[in-house]
């Protein structure tokens, strides 16, 4: 971290340029009673003391823990090249790319990102990203509300509960209604979703695989939505898209994703990456930035913000979203990650993780009292019913340096005994064996 001091001389020079005598003069516009009386900061300490303090905090982490946690955010191996390339100062320090003449590299990277995620989702177009998977769902819902002028959002209860809370919070001041369709044993009820769609529906919002890891085909749901001029919105786990029927193939209008699993480490809640893709006919309703490829007067390829630049960046009141920013660096990381793995690598990754999960299910359901919550197809994440509260198992295994998964009771009352378990390439068969033996010993 750079340490940038201001000497008294520098301070005086800056203040004289501004035309004030001292720092109080600089803040004269802020009434004294509104200025902070004090900053809640400890007194200055030596570099060594500060380092020791933070090392002490860091030592509370358990980096060697064996984890089967997923629930929307996944620990994946990240090739070292992702750090090396995304850390280049051209990308790391670049500012928002309004001026194409000095931002070609950043703009091209965003264009390539849009291309990659569009292909992954089987959709026509993508934007430059938004904050995270939850805000992407909200933006997709708002696209639907604007385009259809309907006011009811039908949401599957098997959509990630954190994202549903975000959606409810974002729309709480708007004249919209959220209609939640109950899941059944972790399986999305396609018939109930279809029955909930009518002429007031702006969008039906589903997730694949859903929060419980169950995979479904929402083609019929989206067809029903189209009959009522409503949008079909789907949130997906991007790593699984190389082996599942894509949102495009299902006929979704907008497909979104939490992009963290594509090259972002898990880091106490962020930064995350909201991926958004849509069908071409909706591009005018697309929020955020869209980069297009064009030719300049000399016929050379150039990349520019396009289709809604003025709407987004000048006429704020008319903007399709007031999220004007995007996660450019995270989008770049995901692009590099996807490029390094390639289509075959992503498929192998998904298949490998599915195979590990099947092995975990085989081992764990061999233990008396543990069974699958449902018989739906699953990917690399699955819900297991335990003969005890899942939270108690998590607490007990923590002592063994293991997190067996996510206890679902917190979000789904009545599912206190259900554990959501995910496997990625970070988990080995040996780890799964150790998990099964430890769990077996406890039950």
């Amino acid at each position: 971290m750079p340490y940038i001091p201001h000497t008294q001389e520098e301070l005086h020079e800056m203040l004289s340029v501004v035309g004030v005598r001292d720092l109080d003069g600089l803040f004269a516009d802020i009434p004294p009673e509104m200025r902070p009386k004090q900053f809640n900061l400890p007194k200055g300490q030596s570099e060594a003391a500060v380092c020791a303090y933070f090392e002490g905090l860091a030592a509370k982490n358990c980096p060697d823990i064996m984890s089967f946690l997923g629930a929307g955010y996944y620990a994946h191996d990240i090739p070292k090249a992702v750090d090396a390339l995304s850390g280049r100062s051209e990308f790391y320090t670049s500012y928002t790319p309004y001026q194409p003449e000095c931002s070609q590299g950043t703009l091209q990277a965003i264009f390539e990102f849009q291309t990659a995620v569009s292909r992954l989702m089987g959709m026509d177009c993508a934007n430059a990203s938004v904050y995270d998977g939850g805000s992407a769902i909200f933006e997709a819902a708002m696209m639907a509300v604007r385009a259809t002028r309907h006011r009811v959002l039908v949401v599957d209860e098997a959509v990630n509960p954190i994202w549903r809370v975000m959606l409810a919070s974002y729309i709480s001041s708007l004249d919209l209604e959220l209609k939640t369709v109950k899941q059944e044993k972790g399986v999305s009820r396609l018939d109930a979703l279809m029955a909930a769609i009518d002429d007031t529906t702006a969008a039906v919002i589903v997730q694949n695989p859903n929060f419980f890891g169950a995979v479904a085909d929402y083609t019929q749901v989206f067809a029903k939505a189209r009959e009522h001029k409503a949008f079909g919105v789907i949130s997906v786990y991007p790593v699984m898209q190389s082996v599942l029927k894509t949102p495009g193939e299902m006929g979704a209008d907008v497909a979104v994703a939490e992009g963290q699993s594509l090259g972002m480490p898990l880091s106490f809640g962020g930064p995350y990456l909201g991926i958004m893709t849509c069908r071409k006919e909706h591009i005018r309703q697309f929020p955020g930035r869209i980069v297009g490829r064009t030719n300049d007067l000399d016929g050379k390829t150039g990349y520019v913000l396009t289709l809604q630049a003025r709407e987004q960046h000048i006429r704020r009141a008319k903007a399709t979203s007031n999220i004007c920013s995007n996660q450019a660096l995270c989008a770049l990381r995901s692009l590099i990650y996807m490029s390094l793995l390639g289509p075959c690598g992503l498929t192998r990754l998904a298949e490998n993780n599915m195979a590990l999960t099947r092995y975990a299910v085989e081992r764990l359901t061999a233990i008396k009292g543990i069974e699958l919550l449902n018989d739906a197809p699953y990917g690399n994440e699955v819900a297991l019913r335990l003969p005890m509260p899942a939270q108690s198992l998590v607490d007990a295994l923590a002592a063994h340096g293991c997190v067996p998964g996510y206890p679902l009771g917190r979000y789904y009352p009545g599912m206190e005994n259900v554990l959501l378990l995910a496997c990625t390439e970070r988990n080995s068969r040996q780890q799964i064996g150790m998990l099964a033996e430890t769990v077996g010993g406890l039950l």
Partner: protein
Amino acid sequence: MATNPTDLLYSKSHEWLRLEGDEAVVGITHFAQESLGDITYVELPLVGDEVSEEGEFGSVESVKAASDLVSPVSGSVVGINTALEQAPEKCNGDPYGEGWLMRVKYSRKPEGLMDAAAYEAFCATEGH
């Protein structure tokens, strides 16, 4: 400069209006399309929407700017020019014909609009 048709009425915000029975057709003027430059997108109301005199009913976006469309008449929208979705440039090429925007069943006859001669004089004061 192309002459503005004499059978139309004109507003200060550069929309034109043609009365046809109890309905009115609305578009943007030659002056407006020329000031905007190449038009790339037209956002129109939906059939059934209510529009009001001097109220915004959509927007038009060109390579230069995005501008609100202001209705010269109050009433309900009974038709829109959907051809503009695919070909917004019709507003440039034929603003008084194929580039029309919407058809309104008006609730009261619009007042205070200019005729072609007055509008031409008005445009002259706009520095064109």
